[in-house]
């Protein structure tokens, strides 16, 4: 689905990403990990067309990404930004409706399908009760869930999520991840998620892109991330491993000195 070749991204002579090579197949679930400032958000923004490509190229379904109109892109991928949405002057429902932008011309009617997309998103993110609330009156975690709901309303085959579970309580963390897994599995939705949770990344169904200083340090299957050496190199942090009691997989715990 996505092919990234020798991508580099700059902002005013500062290189944020360089020589990024990876490709995402239809239905993949990629988790992007890496320390703070390694360029994870930058990568997602570049895929979404928010930051310009400096050199290299990105192709989406075999076509160079710059050949897509922004509207076409928005029908293929949706995006949950890191840390945003708390100052918006809209009600939750209005905001969700805005996600259906790319499916409409100015004259087209609001369809059942549109409404259904929104209702579904509200239900699965547990945000129905905020429907008429103004975005700026929501709590941090409530707002985060609405941002996810907005992206889901866009009903795209690919979704880009930048730390979607930050601010979520344990229950909603599990729920949202469950939800994404399910979308990935049953609807073949391709997912690229930025996360700091390596145990989440280390799932056998996931693939991992580990960035450090704007470059790819490693990429591979999820479970292979749980390597003491690799993690040390990535985060400068030691981990110990336990076996998870229910699924029997390894579970990494950061060591505290």
């Amino acid at each position, binding site marked *: 689905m996505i092919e990234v070749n020798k991508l580099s991204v700059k902002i005013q002579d500062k290189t944020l990403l360089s020589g990024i090579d990876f490709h995402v197949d239809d239905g993949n679930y990629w988790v992007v990990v890496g320390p703070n400032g390694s360029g994870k958000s930058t990568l997602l*923004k570049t895929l*979404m*067309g*928010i930051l310009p490509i400096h050199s290299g190229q990105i192709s989406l379904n075999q076509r160079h990404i710059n050949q897509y*109109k*922004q*509207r*076409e*892109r*928005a*029908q293929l991928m*949706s*995006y949950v*930004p890191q840390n*945003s*949405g708390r100052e*918006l*002057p*809209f009600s939750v429902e*209005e*905001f969700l409706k*805005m*996600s259906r*932008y*790319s499916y*409409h011309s*100015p004259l087209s009617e609001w369809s059942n399908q549109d409404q259904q997309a929104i209702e579904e998103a509200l239900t699965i993110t547990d945000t129905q009760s905020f429907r008429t609330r103004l975005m700026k009156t929501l709590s941090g975690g409530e707002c985060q869930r609405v941002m996810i709901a907005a*992206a889901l309303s*866009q009903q795209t085959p690919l979704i880009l999520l930048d730390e979607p579970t930050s601010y979520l309580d344990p229950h909603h963390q599990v729920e949202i991840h469950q939800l994404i897994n399910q979308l990935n599995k049953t609807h073949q939705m391709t997912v690229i998620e930025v996360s700091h949770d390596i145990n989440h990344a280390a799932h056998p169904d996931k693939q991992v892109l580990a960035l450090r200083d704007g470059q790819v340090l490693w990429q591979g299957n999820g479970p292979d991330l749980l390597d003491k050496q690799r993690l040390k190199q990535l985060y400068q942090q030691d981990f110990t491993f336990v076996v998870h009691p229910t699924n029997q997989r390894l579970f990494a715990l950061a060591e505290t000195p």
Partner: protein
Amino acid sequence: MTSSHKLILITLLSFIIAFSAPWIGLSDIANEIVKQQILLDIRLPRVMFAFVAGAGLSLCGMVFQAMFHNPLATPFTLGVASGASFGAACMVFAGLNVTLLGFDIITIGAFIGALVAITFVFFISQLQRGFSSETLLLTGVATSFFFSSLILFIQYLSDMTDSFMIMRWLMGGLSSASYHSLLQLIPIVTISTAIILWLSRELNLLMAGDDIALSRGVSVKQVRYLLFFSTSLCVGGIVALCGPIGFIGMMVPHICRLLIGTDHRWLTPATIMFGGGFLILCDGIARLLIAPAEIPVGIITTLLGGPFFLWLLIKRRQG
């Protein structure tokens, strides 16, 4: 009341005003021919002109406020109006009395002035790499100041009569309305309005910020260019024909926001209707209050609209 009900109410009120305005204060005229002439040749075009101008100015104000996330933005913020005024002042000063293609020379001067200002602001904003809203805003303001002081300069150079004429022009007003000027105004305002209505949903998304707008599929840069040029042309056209009428463009969108909310799919038509109806109302009062003399319409718009706005503001806060 839902937004659609409110919109219907505003539209209805606006139409009532529009349809009754021409008939008021005609009963004392005995002569039927005079009555006809006043009704058909003077009042009708004037009412229509007021509607178009009021709707256009309010709409452009609304667009600028949304586009720049700034409640103080007006259709005049980016320097279009002062460019137009400068063009008009030049023509008054040069003292030419020519008519070109049916436009009188002041109107032509004003429109050229508006175009110069738009091009200038656009060019400067390009020099700054990108089209960020804050620098565009500041560039516009500086341009606006610049042209305003050129006007002052011309006013300073001219004799009392010219200086009065320029001042008069700067006050704005609808007394130059005629079928002729109406025909000149309608296409400009209609096209701009159509473009803006067409872009209502994009305006909502621009208010949510560039990142979100892009990820929902809006071609932010193109939309911004399109809005910039169409509103600027619209303002240029209106100002060229009836001078700057300040309050409408700044406050009507705020009033409508307080009435109907921030969703542009409702706000845009409401602003058009309210702006048009409001200017007809004010112009009617301006004409009739101390008839036969006329009060400049800008005085009425503010004296009526200002307190209404404050009342809405207080009510919302307390409610």
